[in-house]
């Protein structure tokens, strides 16, 4: 009995010594943290993605540390400026990130082998003024139109490809009277821009040509292609549900998923909600002004990951990013979070049918990010916020013309943006 009693603490002590010895011999696994604003992705990372990475790299442990979306920018700024923050930081696209690069938050990624899987356009949202890459592109979102295939069949409608056909379809649904043509409301102004104007507009301003034209000052928002785009968007007004001025994003999604509306202009991120009631749903891309015109599609870079310049584990962080750049991560992520699309030039297959349909819209279409987020919103008033506001004014008042919206947008932009000041 006595020997037993002695041996237990002894074994424990030996055990501790032993495991300590082993740890020292193989070096403790390095733990790196990843900050993200996607609190809803916590299960995806912890259960699927990180185990897959750690299985290949047992010497590195990654901790997913999300911060509330609304507080993310402020939190990251105060943490990094206080010398803290995760080793890996999820990067907002364009202007916010450009400011962060300027303030020296990130380590340059030049020389990272995985970077070669991404072309220049994909990297553009996260490169600095020196044109170097600071974040690895992770995912983009697309915008288009969900439609209720059963309603289309019932009314004998075909998926529209031109603006005229689009209006005809809306007219036919309205005339039938049983369904709301467009599940769309203007209480949340962001989606008037993101799911409306920035989705159908590129076909008028020719995607990158118009967007970059505004950036380098060669084009103005009062040019006919922009006014036409705003007018094409205003043409939706008669087809919206009654009281649309007060309907928010949740209301319009609900109207569609309850089968009471035929078409929902929305982003790919809403795939899960749009299909949640098991309706027979298809998706089509923004119509073109005239038959035979080039198709355009809004592909918005949404998420990149960069390395904190003050991180103590840069090598481990680089190993992780190199893995993120590869096809294994890309497939895991886009299939775990349907609605997000890989930006890599390597092919990726989507298990969600609607996600695959969305991805197929990219074929033959020219891709372009949201109009106002690159440089044009880095001053006061930000063009993006002004676009939200003025489109909402146009949709909630009857006496505001597309021309007036364009003029006010241009005045606001020209008040601070160098290349537009003339």
């Amino acid at each position: 009995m006595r020997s037993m009693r002695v041996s237990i603490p002894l074994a424990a002590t030996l055990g501790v010594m032993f495991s300590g010895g082993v740890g020292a011999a193989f070096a403790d696994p390095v733990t790196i943290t990843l900050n993200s604003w996607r609190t809803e992705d916590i299960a995806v990372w912890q259960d699927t993605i990180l185990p897959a990475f750690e299985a290949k790299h047992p010497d590195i442990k990654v901790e997913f540390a999300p911060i509330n979306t609304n507080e993310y920018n402020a939190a990251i700024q105060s943490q990094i400026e206080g010398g803290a923050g995760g080793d890996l930081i999820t990067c907002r696209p364009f202007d916010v990130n450009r400011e962060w690069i300027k303030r020296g938050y990130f380590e340059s990624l030049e020389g990272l082998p995985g970077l070669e899987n991404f072309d220049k356009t994909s990297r553009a949202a996260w490169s600095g003024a020196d044109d170097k890459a600071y974040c690895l592109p992770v995912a983009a979102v697309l915008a288009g139109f969900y439609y209720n295939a059963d309603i289309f069949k019932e009314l004998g409608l075909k998926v529209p490809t031109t603006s005229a056909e689009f209006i005809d379809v809306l007219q036919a649904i309205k005339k039938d009277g049983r369904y709301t043509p467009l599940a769309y409301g203007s209480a949340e102004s962001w989606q008037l821009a993101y799911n409306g104007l920035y989705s159908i507009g590129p076909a008028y301003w020719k995607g990158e040509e118009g967007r970059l034209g505004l950036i380098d000052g060669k084009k103005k928002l009062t040019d006919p292609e922009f006014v036409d785009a705003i007018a094409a968007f205003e043409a939706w007004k008669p087809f919206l549900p009654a009281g649309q001025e007060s309907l928010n994003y949740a209301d319009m999604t609900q109207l569609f998923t309850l089968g009471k509306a035929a078409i929902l202009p929305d982003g790919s991120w809403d795939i899960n909600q749009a299909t949640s009631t098991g309706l027979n749903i298809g998706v089509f891309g923004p119509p073109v002004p005239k038959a035979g015109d080039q198709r355009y599609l809004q592909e918005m870079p949404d998420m990149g990951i960069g390395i904190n310049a003050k991180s103590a584990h840069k090598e481990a962080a680089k190993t992780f990013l190199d893995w993120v750049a590869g096809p294994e991560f890309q497939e895991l992520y886009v299939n775990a979070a349907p609605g997000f699309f890989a930006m890599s030039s390597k092919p990726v297959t989507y298990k969600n049918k609607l996600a695959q349909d969305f991805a197929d819209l990219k074929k033959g279409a020219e891709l372009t990010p949201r109009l106002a987020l690159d440089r044009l919103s880095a001053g006061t008033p930000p063009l993006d916020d002004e676009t939200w506001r003025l489109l909402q004014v146009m949709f909630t008042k009857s006496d505001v013309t597309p021309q007036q919206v364009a003029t006010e947008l241009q005045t606001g932009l020209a008040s601070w943006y160098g290349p537009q000041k003339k």
Partner: protein
Amino acid sequence: MISPAAAYRNLLLFVLPALAVYLVFAVLPLATSIVMSFFQTSGASGDTFVGLANYERLFTHPTISARFWNALLNNMQYFAIHLIVEVPMGLLLAALLTSGKLARSEGIYRTLLFIPATLSVVIVGFVWRLIINPLWGLVGFPLLGTESTALTTISLMSVWQYFGIPMVFLYSALLAVPNELVEAANIDGAGGWTTFWKIKFPLIAPQFGLIAILTYIWTFNGFDLVFALNGSAPGPNYSTDILGTYFYRTFFGSSGQLADLDLGAAVATIIFLTVLLVTSVYFWLIQRRLKSYSV
């Protein structure tokens, strides 16, 4: 027998914990925020003293100042609706509760009427948004989506939620009115109406003034209901933007807009001064003249 010195020492000891918490969590942040409004903290060269530059930007930049004045005017309207509807409603209900007409059900009514004040703003916002939703609700008119009605609608939701506060405040003040006075008035032939306005109301006037100024402080620090309903850029066309949401947008940024901490600190200081100024003027000029009768 405790010596006066020891008594003061004990007093200090008892006050110290509360004072420490108050200093660390209220006075210090306030002071830091005021100091911050005179600095440029996000520049490449670290913190630089810029004097009144942040304030100059706040009051002279065409967009920033226009939005500020808009938020201030909206906030005045938000306060006015509370003052005109919520406080009198609280007074009326408190008068009814103490009138003796409700007899035994007084307690039930008191509880029922106070319930909305205990609800979370998120719930109040959500429920009211559904009730007045043009698709599923009772009202076909887009109250929240129309510039001319949106702010009044939100103000009334807030009134609905919080009328219980002035009610219980004035209720307890009315309870303190001595019964002998009321009885004496009755014997002299005063009716309910006269008794209330000639006897009870003058006695609770200081509390009535206090709840009015508290309503001012609460509405000028208001934020949550507007934010819960309309987010940080409250539309349509900023028609429901109040100082709280304006500050939030400036300090924490909104989508696509970088947070400007220094300008935000300047906004916070201006809000603080607005509240401080009016409150001090009120206390100097009005509250002192409201006599509190002692009986």
